[in-house]
């Protein structure tokens, strides 16, 4: 017997939760306990009184599983709202990466040139290295990092995706 898995589609979920101890563990634990995927997760406090946090989760699964994920998240006591931005339509996704590249000579020049094309900012430099800051959707960040691998990439830090729906409406 072989174990098979279903292929899924990528969904970006925006979740608002009470900003209290254990909430993040409750949410990530739900994903592990029920076998759902997390491609990325970001969380930060978003209200002036620090009572609410917004979590953005990029997940992957067949449509019925995505529906279950939303229902399961929604019934957690500290969860205020769950919105499937992918399902809602037009939304903006961004993530930031810090990319450290080391090298000298042509590779160093090439790295700088490509950073310019990608509108990455140089936020630190030594004689033998750069740190680039790049902002964009995940694809753009992926492509930039792939190119930097050819130019002496030594380290990457990524924030994961934050996303928000287009238009004037709030969640």
């Amino acid at each position: 017997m072989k174990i098979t898995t279903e292929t899924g589609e990528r969904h970006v979920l925006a979740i608002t939760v009470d900003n209290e101890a254990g909430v993040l563990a409750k949410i990530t634990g739900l994903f592990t306990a029920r076998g759902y995927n997390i491609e990325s997760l970001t969380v930060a406090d978003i209200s002036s009184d620090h009572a609410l946090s917004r979590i953005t989760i990029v997940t992957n699964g067949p449509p019925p599983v995505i529906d279950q994920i939303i229902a399961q998240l929604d019934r957690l006591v500290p969860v205020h709202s769950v919105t499937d931005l992918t399902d809602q339509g037009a939304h903006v996704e961004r993530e930031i990466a810090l990319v450290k590249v080391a090298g000298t000579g042509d590779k160093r020049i090439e790295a700088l040139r490509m950073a310019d094309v990608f509108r990455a900012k140089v936020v630190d430099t030594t004689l033998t290295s750069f740190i680039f800051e790049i902002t964009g959707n995940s694809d753009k960040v992926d492509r930039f990092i792939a190119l930097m691998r050819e130019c002496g990439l030594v380290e990457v830090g990524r924030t994961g995706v934050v996303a928000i729906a287009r238009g004037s409406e709030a969640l």
Partner: protein
Amino acid sequence: MTEMSGADMVVQALVDLGVDTVFGYPGGAVLPIYDALYKHPTIKHILVRHEQAATHAAEGYARSTGKPGVVLVTSGPGATNAVTGITDALLDSIPMVVLTGQVPTTLIGTDAFQECDTVGITRHCTKHNYLVMDPDRLGPIMHEAFHIATHGRPGPVVIDIPKNVQVATGTYSVPAFIQHNSYRPQVEPDAAAIAAAVEMIAAAERPVFYTGGGVINAGPDASVSLRQLVALTGAPITSTLMGLGAFPSDDDKWLGMLGMHGTYEANMAMNRADLIIAVGARFDDRVTGRLDAFAPEAKKIHIDIDRSSINKIVPVDLAVIGDAGRALDAIIAGWQAAGHKARDLGEWWRRVDGWRATRCLDFPEKKEPDADIMPQRAVRALFDATRGCDPIITTEVGQHQMWAAQHFGFSDPNRWLTSGGLGTMGYGFPAAVGAQIANPDRLVICIAGEASLQMNIQEMGTVAQYRLPVKIFILNNEWMGMVRQWQELTYESRYSNSYSDSLPDFVKLADAYGWTGLRIDTLGELEAGIRTMIDTPGPVIVDCRVAKLANCFPMIPSGAAHTDMILQPNDIVGTMDDEAKALV
């Protein structure tokens, strides 16, 4: 608004919330609360012998009364021992509040004596949990916890209280009105969904009601409404293990339980129906059998208070989110307002009667007085002997549980207490303790297997201490019968570790705890033995020796469809392919 210690606040909150009974076990980290409970005038504390039993007793209390069960245990092992019962309550949607002691806040995270990460450990086996770091928060948290445990889909809530929070003083406050800022379950069903449900039911030619524990949780009125709706529509009705009692088993619309050990007629009706009306049931794998063959011809209406139950396993055509009782009432009102009359379901009932004719619950037996007792016969004799006594029946988990579900008839809700979702061996006896505490004048019987009973047998001491007249009726076949049955079905009868070796002498054990012990060996002794058990005041343990190798039928084997039931023992093949073996 009064200044008092955290421990006093806990007790005050219990009083304010109408709690009369707490099941627990003391220890270092809850001593302040135990001191506050000392000789308390209204709150009765039941001292169990193991914290797991406290949680099951609280479940028994809750299931038999509809009120939340309350548990008080210490930190570390007290909390970890409670985890099985907490998980059981989560899977069976039992309202429960568990208070756990914790090491002082100053020691949290230092691997202190009897420290464990209780909120971490119970995060995914509770509906919600709290770690209280400030005594001022105790009042609001206690009240909120009871609200969450009992509203929407009920479940267990843990409140972890560090010892210094119990000792420190603060202000006790009671929220005037609890409206949680994020937890607001939908109770009232959507009118459009109800209207659609009424039309679907009115149009159905082969409808069947499939009901579950949600009807019990919705309160006794929901069972009344269910009976009314079934009578109005004239449709047959089946139920899950957890839903038994919501509909009377002696009604001619009743098909018996469905699922793996359900009746042939219930499963065939599900398979051939053109409409399934699921009420407070969650399409569990024990109910559906092979999913791609589940109810292929049926449209499905799913009434459930938990949105996440909808489309979780079986996609449905119409979802009605809300309290089962209110949804049933709304459907009845809609049905009557539309002037619907029950359709002529004669053709459907003729098919149902055809399936009933297989008499799937019949079993082979010898009738001589010295014959072995068939376990099914023992359950039926117990049922016959207790008719009119309105007993509360609890079970452990295994073959005896299924035989009890098949052969014991229930007429009303809250009389049948069993571990359905988690299938916890060791549940039944402590649950009987809790049910007896809540219903001191009722006949409470735990139908047990000799293996399951031993998982919490230490509670004989609790029963003796509080002089509870609990009866334990053991179907003793000297096997972990359900394990053996699966080994017979799947592993060519290689009985790996399923024999109950070195059993105690249950009669002597009864004697040791000051109980009455009885042994029934043959069919001729069965009725008199049961009569003696019922007539003997105080706790009684009955060691009823039953046919050792009897198996529980009918049965849908692992990975099979509703239509592929094994009706008789000689249908057993003894092997299974890997796909079927891999299923639970």
